[in-house]
């Protein structure tokens, strides 16, 4: 059988091509096992990709992410919210004192649980 000339075989392959791009289980969590399996088999990055990786940074002073706002392709988290998260600037998005106190209480609880987890490891 000559596969390239069989339209049914072609149709089957086209469907698999389309399926390969579908993000199955997109609402599920990516487990640590899946991450490790991915890392064990993923391809190396090209020099061009590597240059993009080098641009990913965390600069608390300048928030280098601001540069990204020039590219509209990916929805942005607003700079305002970023600043609020970093406690660098008072904004409308900043929580009121009551909410902030509640958040700090939750963070303190997490700190305590993590401290215990660290001690028990």
């Amino acid at each position: 059988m000559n596969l390239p000339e069989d339209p049914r075989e072609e149709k089957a392959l086209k469907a698999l091509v389309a399926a390969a791009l579908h993000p199955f289980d997109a609402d599920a969590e990516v487990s640590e096992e899946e991450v490790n399996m991915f890392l064990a088999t993923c391809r190396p990055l090209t020099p061009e990709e590597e240059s993009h990786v080098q641009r990913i940074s965390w600069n608390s002073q300048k928030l280098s992410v601001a540069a990204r706002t020039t590219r509209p392709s990916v929805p942005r988290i607003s700079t305002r919210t970023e600043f609020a998260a970093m406690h660098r600037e008072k904004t409308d998005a900043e929580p009121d004192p009551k909410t902030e106190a509640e958040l700090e209480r939750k963070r303190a609880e997490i700190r305590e649980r993590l401290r215990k987890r660290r001690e028990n490891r």
Partner: protein
Amino acid sequence: MGVSLNQMAIELTVPEDFDLECMCGLIETDENERVKTMGKLVEAYRRPLFAFVRNKFPSYSAEDAEDIVQNVFITLWQKVAGADFDDNGSLRSLLFTIALRQGVDELRRRKALKRSDDEMAELVAKSLDDTAVARAWKRAAESKDQASEIMSSFRDFVSCLPDQQKLVAEAMYVNASDIDDNSALVRHIRERTGKVVTTMMVKGAKQALIEKFRQLLKNKGLLV
């Protein structure tokens, strides 16, 4: 003790308790400590996350992947600030899950996510019919790893294609139920980019994608 998860391709060589230490650092009261921790986290995870986004969403450009990964760290920062994360869970899992969600959100924004998992599976099942490819795929699916490996290798192939060919792959995905209608694929590309491509180009790119998939099945000994 250092743990190298992969010394062949993308390395994530971090101390054994790196993730837990980072979680502790991120929730510190001292902002300098939080920022320092975030810097370490970005340095360790930016490459693996970038590779992950490239693989899961091969039709995105490298710039898109860069943006998504940058947003992953911002989202994590916000989650920590809002005490909105499971401190008993895995930081690694959380980072990759955020990356997956952001990639899918972008697909939705592009109106490129048209089918549920079930709808896509049904469409594939119908198209496979009683073919040699179907039998090959069934054998691959019997070992879940083999099927995932083929899909992943194929996505890697797509992610390295020139932009126009990548768009054809995206068009085939979006128009999966009407995949033989080349004019629909041409229309998709025009609507997405404003660029006019020829039917001939679409046809050629489609054939290259099909051929690659066939080759992957052959390489695994699943197809003669």
